[in-house]
């Protein structure tokens, strides 16, 4: 009967001497562990706006917003932090996760409370889109095509879309946007085409 009381007394004295076990959080900053999954942040250099993160996100918190007008055709990746549950799928399955810097990465930032949902977003810069030269459909971001060309190396010459897109990037080919024609001819194959038009140009 006596021993339990002594044990509690020792623990009580310990607690008094050492002070509170809890951290003094708001006064002293808190540093999370190295692997902590905080706010996912896009890198403007690393992100190629391929949209892979939006596909794998379990809560569909990532929006892949394409804006196609006469003046500009751009894609922006928007991660809604209020819908995100910080599972780490976007950074784990990012296309450029092995590059430096990776496209999207979890930071140690955890203090994300706020008053407006609109402000709770994590975004990348707008990336220019590559449009199909026949129908004007969105193919993917130009950065994505360039990344593919770089990754494939000489193999990219077998794919006219990648090849012509990289020529245009270097300023060696003119950017001509043609209105839709009734019939596609075989010469149309050497153009930046969407999958649908490529099938048409090749088979029909």
């Amino acid at each position, binding site marked *: 009967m006596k021993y339990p009381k002594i044990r509690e007394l020792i623990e009580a004295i310990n607690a008094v001497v050492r002070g509170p076990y809890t951290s003094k959080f708001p006064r002293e900053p808190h540093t999370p*562990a190295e*692997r902590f999954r905080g706010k996912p942040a896009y890198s403007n250099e690393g992100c190629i706006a391929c949209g892979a993160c939006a596909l794998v996100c379990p*809560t569909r918190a990532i929006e892949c917003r394409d804006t196609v007008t006469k003046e500009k055709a751009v894609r922006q990746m928007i991660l809604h932090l209020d819908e995100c549950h910080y599972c780490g799928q976007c950074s784990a399955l990012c296309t450029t996760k092995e590059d430096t810097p990776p496209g999207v990465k979890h930071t140690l930032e955890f203090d994300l409370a706020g008053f407006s949902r609109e402000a709770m977003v994590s975004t990348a810069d707008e990336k220019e889109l590559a449009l199909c030269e026949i129908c004007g459909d969105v193919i993917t971001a130009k950065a994505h095509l360039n990344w593919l060309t770089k990754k494939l190396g000489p193999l990219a010459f077998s794919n006219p879309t990648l090849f012509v897109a990289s020529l245009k990037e270097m300023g060696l080919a003119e950017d001509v946007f043609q209105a839709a024609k009734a019939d596609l001819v075989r010469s149309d194959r050497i153009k930046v085409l969407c999958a649908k038009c490529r099938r048409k140009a090749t088979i029909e």
Partner: protein
Amino acid sequence: MSHKPVIPIGPYHPLQEEPEFYKLVVDGETVVDVDVRIGWNHRGIEKISESKSFDQSIFIVERICGICSSSHPITCVQAIEDIADIEVPERALYIRSIIQELERLHSHMLWLGLAGHFLGYNTVFMWGWKYREPICDIMETVTGNRQNYAMMKVGGVRRDIEKEHVSYIMGRLDEFLHHLDMLKGAVLDDPVLHARLKGVGILTKEAAIEYSVLGPVARASDIDIDVRRDHPYAAYDRIKWNVITMKEGDVFAKTVVRILEMYESVSIIRQCLDKMPRGPIDAKVKDIPPGEGISQAEAPRGECFHYIKSDGTNSPVRHKIRAPTYMNFPTFKETVVGQTVSDATIILAAIDPCYCCTERMLIVDTKDNDLFSVQELIRLSQEKTMRMAKIIKNN
């Protein structure tokens, strides 16, 4: 039944802060009958899971419960692996075991604290929650989160346990073990707890078998079952450990079983860290073929069961989940009846009920007249509308 006073607890439990509803029929101080109603909080998790891909559905089952946030995913991934016959790398199995046991440690610690709080023994509450922190710290270091670890993956685990983590985990576990000794002493040496818990809420072995209880509740009633040993998964068949059983079946036995299980968990984690082979942590997964898969895992509260049916597409066609508390709930009829109201609180808490695991479906008993079924509620509502319509017409 109607002339006896009824004490309702719920629909929001004042102590456990979760949605549930108990109806205690009392005669003076003694509880004569108990009625448990679940289904206050329908979250539609099974349906959501069916709309996600296999890889994504693991994250929704992870969020069924904040405490068993690795038991449900491990059961889910094992069921998917069962469909596709995926062989998981050895190292991944060991890591799965480690995460499972760490989760058991912190869950039992949490329960112990809560039990102490219910009894008014707040020292145990403070110690239990204070010394649960090392486990949560290990979780944050290894997995990146204190809860909802996102570790399980079809075919393996998502993150490796690095060399520096091993020494860190060992160090924190030593620290934890010291505090666990202290906590064990505080519970087992305390004469008040002996007097308060012994012989309270006895669940006999026969009754336990009849109610098909699971987990620590069954083991406290001398039923020697444990999924980890009986249907080995992860790395449990590769290491030595004991299944703890007690004969009494009262609340005290349930407490002791949980405390002793924590020692086993620490030993399992240490053995796993020692024996863990090098190698990949992740198997290449191809398509999930059409088929059915089942899987069990020993969650801190008992056996967790998942059934997944695939039709060859990327998402499950049917995902059925049975949480351990669902089986342990009905034992209240056996344990609470005949006890005093003041004992009822701890008996209701003794099975470590996890409402969020169980509160995923609506169960309505239409035979009992003082329960309202959905149809009855609709009828009542419609009658009221008609009554009000009449009043308005007359005016």
